[in-house]
């Protein structure tokens, strides 16, 4: 199997940048240097064939990404922009945490009636919530609160600036 093709398969299957050393793990007899050469070859091929994607260096790794000129088409496309919209579950969880922080996973689950582990992890990865404390008592459960990024997103200075129920009508009207 040609080295270039193996490297292409690995780069294709990965959604995050991989270093040449990591890519070399695909085959027992592959060196990082050979991988670098193969990447150079792929770059030239994609260039010549005018593919919609290209191999880009990112940090100390490489990733195949679509060319910037296709961004408008991808943005039109639901499934690609959808990733930035919070799911209903994430939204509810975020609302609970924003208004009741610091709260434990258990409290979130009590309100929503379903497991919250996955949603909490997701919100944490997005940098919208973080562990702010640990509760007293059995197992010392982690307590979650919102982050500075969360405040930034809404242009709030402190969590006390969050609108209260008295603003709801106004908020709803202005949201129309």
């Amino acid at each position: 199997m040609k080295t270039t093709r193996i490297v292409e398969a690995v780069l294709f299957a990965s959604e995050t940048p991989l270093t040449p050393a990591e890519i070399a793990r695909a085959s027992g007899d592959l060196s990082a240097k050979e991988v670098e050469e193969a990447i150079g070859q792929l770059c030239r091929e994609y260039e010549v064939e005018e593919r919609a994607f290209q191999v880009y260096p990112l940090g100390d790794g490489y990733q195949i990404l679509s060319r910037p000129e296709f961004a408008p088409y991808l943005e039109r496309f639901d499934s690609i922009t959808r990733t930035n919209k919070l799911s209903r579950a994430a939204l509810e969880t975020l609302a609970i945490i924003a208004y009741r922080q610091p709260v434990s996973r258990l409290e979130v689950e009590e309100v929503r009636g379903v497991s919250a582990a996955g949603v909490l992890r997701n919100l944490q990865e997005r940098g919208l919530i973080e562990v702010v404390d640990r509760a007293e008592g059995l197992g010392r459960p982690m307590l979650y609160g919102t982050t500075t990024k969360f405040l930034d997103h809404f242009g709030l200075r402190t969590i006390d600036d969050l609108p209260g129920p008295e603003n709801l009508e106004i908020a709803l009207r202005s949201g129309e």
Partner: protein
Amino acid sequence: MRLPTPVSSQVLEDGDRFLIELERFQGPLDLLLHLIRCQDIDIFDIPIAEITAQFVAAIEHVEQHLTLERAGSFLEMAATLVRIKAQMLLPRRGDLLDDEDPRSELVRRLLEYEVFREVAYSLADAEAERALHRGKGYIEPRPPRRMPELPLELTINELLEVAMSLPAPPEKRPHRAPVRPVTVDEKIELWFKALKRKTRVQFGKFIGRWKTRIHAVMSFLACLELAKRGRVVLRQDRHFGTLWIYPSEDDENS
């Protein structure tokens, strides 16, 4: 250090060999087909007595081990086989051409099941072939998946609206459990329980499970009450030393 033998291999009895065998089969039809096919039997002329005997032998130990639901399906088939066997013994009126063979319905079911069993094997092949094709994102993100840095689509109004639609917050934690009166009688019961299988109990250990003073006081009063009734003996070597409670001798047999 020697590791303990896994429990599973200790409890394996003879009968479990059949169980393991049976676990391989999807159900009674699967087992029956296996018996027929591996002995090269003509499916349109099944020697019903022989097959019934083999089937029953295979499931003999089913009842104890398989779940009721699974065992039920095997037993039901055994009953069907026995019924067919009985019908085969009855004299048949040869003058009627459409006098159906008692085995025909079973044969139809077996053939039908066999077809779908074959399709299932083909599906397994198709599944394995499909699994060789990997999509984008197959390789695990490293470093761990970062969410896209594109702006989040969420307004403060939406957040507020959702917050307001949620059920009211649960009562502020920690919950205060309603105060329950602690009684001497209740502690007496507990002392009896604690002393039942022991020759002596340490007072400190006994009250250790409760954190409040009222329990210690009531437990102590209970001890004194029991001692007065002659049911226990209290021993303490010195002032503020360990207090031991022994069941009294004549209580042993009660």
